[in-house]
């Protein structure tokens, strides 16, 4: 796909949303890289956890540049800090030092409101343990981000449209036949598909996947990665996937290794 088309899409995304510029207001370009090329960049990212008064450094200066439309796998051993990196990218946590930029704008120092909007509309997230709400059906779980971004009145007015959109994404991840089921009635692979539909319903720019296959068998995991691949190819979705499974990691366009809290590019 041409880069011109990409910018078009990005412009539509930011313009089409009322609260879009929230996170852009306080941001200033942190890198001189052209905006269109890199969608997500980090520089000098550090993060440590305190445990019994001892600082345990997890990330020790991560510099990462992720191109728009790229399928990146971040691999590393348990405890290498890959999940922490993903949480930082998804603004679920804040770095001790260093910066994170999204579309050229700093996002690591955003206020809670900006982070909420970012997580709700621009990032999609999937997790190892799927993290579906057990009280809600497949369809309701998938439509949840839209419920969060719209108030009751607006949601109810457009409920039909939104439900159609959820159905569209559920169909896309291959789960159109289980709309009324609760998570506990679904298999692991199906739950992960629901989680993907949920992550994609607000048409995010970036999908952050935290060990999406970690809890699945080889075959199911492979299917999930296939879906990710096709989304990356057809929807031009930027995907950052954290995994410790090297076989799956090689499926990605680019493999980044995380060793001792630092990035080593391998491919």
């Amino acid at each position: 796909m041409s880069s011109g088309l990409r910018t078009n899409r990005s412009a539509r995304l930011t313009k089409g949303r009322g609260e879009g510029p929230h996170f852009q207001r306080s941001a200033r370009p942190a890198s001189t890289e052209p905006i269109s090329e890199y969608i997500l960049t980090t520089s000098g990212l550090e993060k440590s956890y305190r445990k019994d008064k001892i600082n345990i450094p997890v990330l020790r200066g991560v510099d990462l540049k992720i191109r728009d439309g790229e399928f990146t796998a971040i691999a590393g051993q348990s405890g290498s800090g890959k999940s922490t990196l993903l949480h930082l990218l998804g603004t679920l946590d804040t770095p001790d030092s260093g910066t994170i930029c999204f579309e050229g704008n700093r996002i690591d120092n955003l206020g809670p409101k900006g982070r909420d909007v970012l997580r709700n509309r621009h990032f999609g997230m999937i997790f190892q343990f799927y993290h579906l709400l057990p009280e809600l059906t497949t369809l309701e779980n998938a439509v949840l981000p839209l419920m969060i971004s719209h108030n009751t009145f607006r949601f109810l007015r457009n409920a039909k449209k939104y439900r159609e959109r959820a159905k569209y994404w559920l169909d896309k991840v291959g789960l159109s036949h289980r709309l009324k089921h609760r998570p506990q009635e679904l298999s692991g692979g199906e739950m992960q598909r629901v989680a993907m539909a949920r992550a994609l319903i607000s048409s995010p720019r970036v999908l952050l996947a935290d060990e999406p296959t970690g809890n699945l068998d080889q075959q199911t995991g492979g299917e999930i990665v296939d879906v990710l691949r096709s989304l990356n190819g057809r929807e031009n979705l930027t995907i950052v996937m954290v995994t410790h499974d090297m076989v799956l990691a090689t499926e990605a366009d680019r493999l980044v290794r995380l060793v001792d809290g630092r990035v080593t590019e391998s491919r």
Partner: protein
Amino acid sequence: MYKLLLCSRYLRTRYIALASIISVMLGVATMIVVNSVMAGFQDEMHRRLHGILSDLVFESHGVEGIANPDELMKEIRETLGDEVVAMTPNVHIPSMLAFKVRDQWITKPITLIGIDTKSYADVSDFSTFLLHPDNRARLDFSLRDGGFGSRLEPAGKAYRQRRLAMELAYQDQIEQMVALTADVSPEEDATDPAASDDPFAAIAPKAPSVESMMEPHTGIVLGISIASIRQRDSEGDVADYFLCRPGDDVRLTFPTAGMPPDAVSDYFTVVDLYESKMSEYDANFAFVPLEKLQWLRGMIDPKTGVGAATAIQIKLADGADLNAARDKLQAKYPPHLFSYRIQTWKDMQGPLLAAVQMETTLLNILLFLIIAVAGFGILATFFMIVVEKTKDIGILKSLGASSRGVMSIFMTYGFSLGIVGSGVGMILGLVFVVNINRIAALVEQLTGREVFDPTIYYFQKIPTIIHPLTVAWIVLGAVLIAVIASVLPALRAARLHPVEALRYE
């Protein structure tokens, strides 16, 4: 939208939370029942207290009373203006009542009240408590034929004539007996009473003639508890046993006006009984015509013919401020210059009303504490639910839900629980109040004990009044407590760090 959805799902799936609001429900229900019954009691009591007392009572401390009540009433009307609806002069005096029960004289201390039959009915509800329906319509202190109600049969004019006829027949028999025994001693028989040595024989009271005895004396209306004893019969049913009934004669002794007072005494004929169901009144008050009492006590000025009164009862217009009117009169007749005492009916029954009010307040405080305790139950349950839902909170936050949004899930949850709890409690309470007499009957049947002993309480049915405003306040308070109890857990949920919440197992 997700707040409402999750909230409704939590409501439907988490029954432990519903269990925690049962106490809210019970608290609301009991509060409504207690308040309705207390309001019913109070209203009933007020009606009875007020019924005889009228709105304002203007009393004179002196024995001689207010020399010219008409003049005073005119002044009062000038002071209070249009607020005065009606006024009536009274004479209140302590008195001793005596009547014969099976040849034994029974005496009772009572308060004798002389009333002006024309104006008294305008001021107080006294006449509605009378037993005879004609007297209720218009009381003129004349003895009526029967019709005092089934428990007072026989009574009235016919009863009186029959009773007196029997007494006379009995007396005749006694006389005949005496005459027969007198035949045995002829020398006594021969003596002429007029020529006897006894100087008082000529002026000795003759036995009253039949006609004069048949003629009723001045009428008197007795409180029902003066004239009767309420007790249980052998079967345990409550029954009134009448010592004297309409048609019987009673003898009253009371002090005259003036100093030192002399005791005067006269016969009165009971013409009716009244039952206000306030034992204090029913056991103490007897009513006679004002003029007769004034005349007997020497309260009528021989020159002007104006009768004095010891009190003036005033009825004010509906909605008039009693205390303001009292204060106005007190300002006009300050206690250091006049020997008048001006009170509203509430002042006069102050201790009783205050005690009941205190009881209601205390009960409300205690019951509200129950609901407050229920609030802590909600707090604990909610903390548990928040801990259980920690991961879900992390998920919601990772999807972009704001802290405020997460908080409002639990606040809405608390609010809905409060609504459900107090709503069900309200329905329960109202159903209980509406059917309270049936429930009381059932309890009586089950336990064999009467809930309200009719020898003590004068009502057959438990009176209840539902004040919508009170109900609204109770429900509002309960909902508020549920919401307040959910604030802390909701805050905790809102403050959860998304990463830690997601990691939570």
